[in-house]
């Protein structure tokens, strides 16, 4: 077997345990699209044109509540901004590859494949076959994601929509939120973002309250960390 093939398979194997989280998320996403009355073509278009779990789910949720386009796009972009950081930090692995391959990598990269590839890079930065590892890991996630969506969409056609379904999306977001609560400053940002959202969403039209709340949350996190730094500066 060629080394590239071996590394490709190794990447897939490494990432396999995370499918336990990916597949249910995908099923709910498919279900949510069916519930938001997306046609099969529309769902296929959206699930194949972008791979960005949380921001896609948010876009569907916002579209279903008749949010104007620019807020849907802005919210999706903000939730996705962390990927720009990945694109910077994964540079040493993919830098020397042709442009089209890097573009494809940008399309298929996920939180999981990024994290596992970088862990591998830490262990052995001299491994020239890491791009194959990355591809194997990413592609397994992509296939499972799309399969899960297909399953969820078709389940959505069988199981009648209940008013409970709109409760599933926040539940998914909750389990995605937990890992981001490390550190006082981030807890402050999250609590402020959540509280402002509860106040502003009913007050402002067009889901502008959501956008405002996200920005207030981020701002309060930054402010808190600056105050923290200053205090530590005084102590020292």
């Amino acid at each position: 077997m060629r080394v590239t093939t071996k590394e490709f398979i190794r990447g897939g194997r490494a990432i396999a345990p995370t499918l336990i989280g990916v597949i249910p998320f995908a099923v709910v996403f498919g279900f949510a699209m069916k519930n938001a009355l997306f046609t099969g073509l529309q769902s296929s278009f959206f699930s194949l044109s972008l791979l960005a779990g949380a921001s896609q789910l948010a876009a569907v949720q916002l579209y279903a509540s008749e949010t104007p386009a620019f807020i849907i796009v802005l919210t999706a972009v903000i939730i996705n901004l962390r990927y720009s950081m990945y694109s910077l930090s994964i540079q040493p692995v993919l830098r020397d590859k042709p442009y089209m391959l890097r573009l494809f990598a940008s399309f298929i990269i996920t939180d999981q494949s990024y994290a596992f590839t970088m862990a591998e890079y830490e262990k052995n930065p001299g491994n020239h076959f890491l791009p194959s590892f990355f591809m194997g890991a990413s592609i397994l996630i992509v296939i499972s994601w799309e399969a899960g969506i297909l399953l969820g969409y078709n389940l959505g056609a069988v199981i009648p929509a209940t008013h409970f379904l709109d409760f599933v999306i926040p539940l998914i977001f909750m389990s995605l939120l937990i890992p981001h609560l490390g550190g006082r400053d981030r807890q402050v940002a999250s609590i402020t973002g959540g509280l402002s959202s509860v106040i502003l969403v009913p007050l402002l039209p067009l889901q502008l309250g959501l956008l405002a709340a996200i920005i207030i949350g981020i701002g309060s996190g930054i402010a808190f960390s600056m105050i923290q730094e200053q205090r530590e500066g005084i102590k020292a």
Partner: protein
Amino acid sequence: MSFYIIFGTVALSCLVVKGLFLCFIPAKRLPSFFEKTLRYIPGSALSALIAPAIIYTKAGGDFTVSFSRTLAGGLAFIVAMRSQNIFITIFSGLAMLWAFSWIMTS
């Protein structure tokens, strides 16, 4: 038609973000302000999406506070923290909402 324009724009702009420094802008490191901002985005954005979706129901365009949803959501959050498992969080959250709504309507 507008569907494809909206979601096409979402897809394209997110692709630009995903490949920002790998394909579109040459950079060696992040501007420090941007780095700080990134640290708070997931928490703030997810909480802002979660909180109103848990607390309110939107019957006929009006936001009304739902006690059963708020209670089930709050408890599900504790479950999410303890279990760190997406499956357990979804099922326990739905089960609690179902139970609380049943208790309150009967």
